[in-house]
Structure formats: C-alpha cells, structure tokens
C-alpha cells in the first residue's frame, strides 16, 4: 500500500514539443471551436496539459503498481491545475512528476488510499508554466 515516506519522490520525467495539430485536435474532441486553439500558432485550452502529460511522460500501469495502488479499483478522484500562463504551440516543456501527498480514509466500506501526483511543467527558460495535481484513489484489498 502507499506510504507517507513516498512523499516527494520523483516518479517520472519527460519533455516534448507542443504542436499546433495536437492542440487543435484536443479542442475539436471537446467540441470547443474557440479560434485561439486553431491555426498555425495556437495556445492551448485549460485542460490540454492532461493530453500533453500523457504524450510526454512514460509511466502508466507500472507507475500505479510501483505506488502500491490497487489497479482494479483505481479511480481518478480529483484534478487540479494551477496556471502561470497559457501553453503555446511550438514550445518545448519539461515535466517532473512527483508524489505530493499520501493519505488514507477509512469508512464503512473499508480503507481508501489517496495519492496526490503533482506534475510541474517548465519552459526552456526554466519558468514554471503550470502545475497539475491528480488525486488517485484506490480501495485497499
């Protein structure tokens, strides 16, 4: 099971260049026709970081197993974004994902494990562009 001593541990890193096509395809899937997300030099819609992180970072199943979470009952419980500025097509962002918090809650249906994964994105000047905090919840077997 996840434990408090995991807090602060870096789980995954990655880097990728944002493309105009990736941004506009993401906006199209949300049926969001805002012209800011189209054309040769778009900026990204607010939840685009989730698609970018999936593309730029390795992990997935192995990460969940490493965390000690029960993959069969794993749910994405909460999601938070903190923005310094919009993401722009053409820029390269570096991502660092770490465990920000680990806690548990026990109720009538057993114990739930909570793991908060925080990903920090920085640009080529080292300036922070966004933080993403993803709370994963799994039921302890």
């Amino acid at each position: 099971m996840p434990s408090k001593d995991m807090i602060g541990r870096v789980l995954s890193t990655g880097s990728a260049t944002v493309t105009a096509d990736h941004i506009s395809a993401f906006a199209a899937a949300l049926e969001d026709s805002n012209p800011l997300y189209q054309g040769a030099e778009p900026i990204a819609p607010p939840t685009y970081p989730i698609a970018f992180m999936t593309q730029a970072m390795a992990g997935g199943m192995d990460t969940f197993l490493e965390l000690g979470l029960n993959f069969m009952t794993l749910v994405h419980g909460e999601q938070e974004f903190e923005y310094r500025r919009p993401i722009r097509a053409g820029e390269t962002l570096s991502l660092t994902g770490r465990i920000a918090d680990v806690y548990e809650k026990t109720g009538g249906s057993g114990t739930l494990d909570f793991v908060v994964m925080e990903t920090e994105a920085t640009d080529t000047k080292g300036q922070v562009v966004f933080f993403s905090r993803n709370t994963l919840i799994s039921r302890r077997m």
Partner: protein
Amino acid sequence: MAGLDAKTVRVGQALQPLTKPAITKDTLKRYAAASGDPNPMHLDDEFARNSGYKGVFAHGMLSMGYLGEFLVQAAGHPSAIRRFKTRFAKLTWPGDVITCKGTVTAIQDDGAARVVDCDIWTENQEGEKKLVGTASLALPRG
C-alpha cells in the same frame, strides 16, 4: 458578451451557463484518441459491464474540458484562469446533456487584477451534479 466584468462582478452572481451537445459513444472515442487515454472503460461496453457498470461512461477529464471552455467564456481568455480544480463526484453517461454552471464566491484585488473565486459544477439534463469544483479567475481591472 457572456463574460464577467471586473467593474460589476459581485459575490453570488451566476456565471453564464454553457450547455454542450449530448455525449455519445463517438464523443468518447474522439476524446480518447485526442487525449491519449486508452482506458477501455470508456470505449468497450463489454469491458465496462464486466467491471460492474451498466456500460461505458465518459472520461472525467472530458467534462473538466467542458468546464475549461465555460471558464474561458466567463474570464474572457485562457490566460485569466489562475487555478481550476474539480472532484469527479458522479459518473457521466452517453446520452447525458451536460451544462456547466457556476457562482461567484469571493472577490479580492491583487495588483492589476480583480481575482474572482467561483464554485463550478457540471450537471446533466435532470439537474444531477457530476463534477464539482472551484476556480480562480484574474480579471484585468483596467
């Protein structure tokens, strides 16, 4: 203009709602491809039923994306969103028509910005709340 105005915004004010087209299984396929989320729970009815659900259900992040569009509409531009958080309280199903709603809960000034905190949520055609969260929008005081 559907957005908030820094000069007239007040606590308790409702944000202009945003209603999206009905969610279909095709919506989920397109979102899965664009977001890179291969989880069969959102694509394969058989898989979802074997996991104890009545069928596929929508990605939580699809609805959060709708809330993102709603916040851009309220704030005027993506750069005005400082913070945005949601809890995935209830599942959203194919056939649901999602409306994004919100109310202003606090206002404070920070330099050249008027920072507006909001409670935000999605609800379906029956008024059942699905995602619930908060956001902070920085409106230029201009």
